[in-house]
């Protein structure tokens, strides 16, 4: 059971949260202009990294805010949480 720090409410059990998968998938600005394959890329294709991952979570049973986490998909270590719209934090194994 992960312990996730909501940027607002602090550490809470994983069960209070809803996981929204990969973060920073931007909705295309002009969907009709996209070829089918590009649209499929937005709707279905996902990074699914083995290692550090930026992902979205929502504090469903608490403040109901969405936020982002940097989490390792092998160790489950959480490097930190950041707000939607905040600048992209580097991943812990990325050179600065």
């Amino acid at each position, binding site marked *: 059971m992960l312990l996730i720090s909501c940027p*607002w*409410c*602090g550490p*809470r*059990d994983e*069960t*209070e949260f809803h996981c929204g998968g990969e973060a920073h998938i931007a909705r295309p600005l002009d969907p009709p202009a996209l070829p089918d394959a590009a649209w499929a890329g937005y709707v279905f294709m996902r990074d699914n990294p083995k290692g550090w991952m930026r992902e979205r979570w929502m504090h469903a*049973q*608490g*403040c*109901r*805010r969405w936020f982002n986490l940097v989490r390792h998909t092998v160790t489950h270590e959480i490097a930190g949480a950041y707000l939607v719209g905040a600048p992209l934090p580097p991943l812990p194994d990325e050179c600065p």
Partner: protein
Amino acid sequence: MADRGTTILDPLAAAIAAASCEEARLSRLPLVGQVTLRAGRDAVSLAGVALDLALPTEPNRVASDGGRAAVWLGPDEWLILLPRGDVASTVARLEMALDGGHFAAVDTSAARLGLALSGPAARQVLAKGCGLDLHPRAFAPGDCAQTALARVPVLLVQRDEAPTFWVFVRPSYAVFLARWLIDAIAELRLAPIPGLDT
């Protein structure tokens, strides 16, 4: 209109009263007025002025004042608890004060029912179904939290050092939650287990 209010917990009144014991007293809170206030950054302080009650901006804190309280629900969301009769006028005052700002004040007086649990074993009772750290070091009077109790979404407010907790719950879940609480309290009235000293 308040006098006409009935709640789904009414039929459980006797069972709730009977469940209480020295260590943990369970009761129904009287119906209170509730206003859910959503306010953008521009509207927070104005809302405080209109309410004459500063909204807590520190997460999971409650600001109280006489018969009213402002409960932090989210960075742009509060629950204002107030006498039922004051709801309409308060909403109107907010609408006036915040006119043009980004906000929403919605009467949700009937969208949650309150239970009170107090007594030295109150924490232990809640801890049977709540993963929140309820220790006084972590959750003190004036603190609040939206969380899950017995897998039901609740709003917990820690009132005093008795300790007393208010448990607000959606009416649809109230019967289940009350039954669960009654069940959780039951062991406090039993003779202790021989050979178990914890």
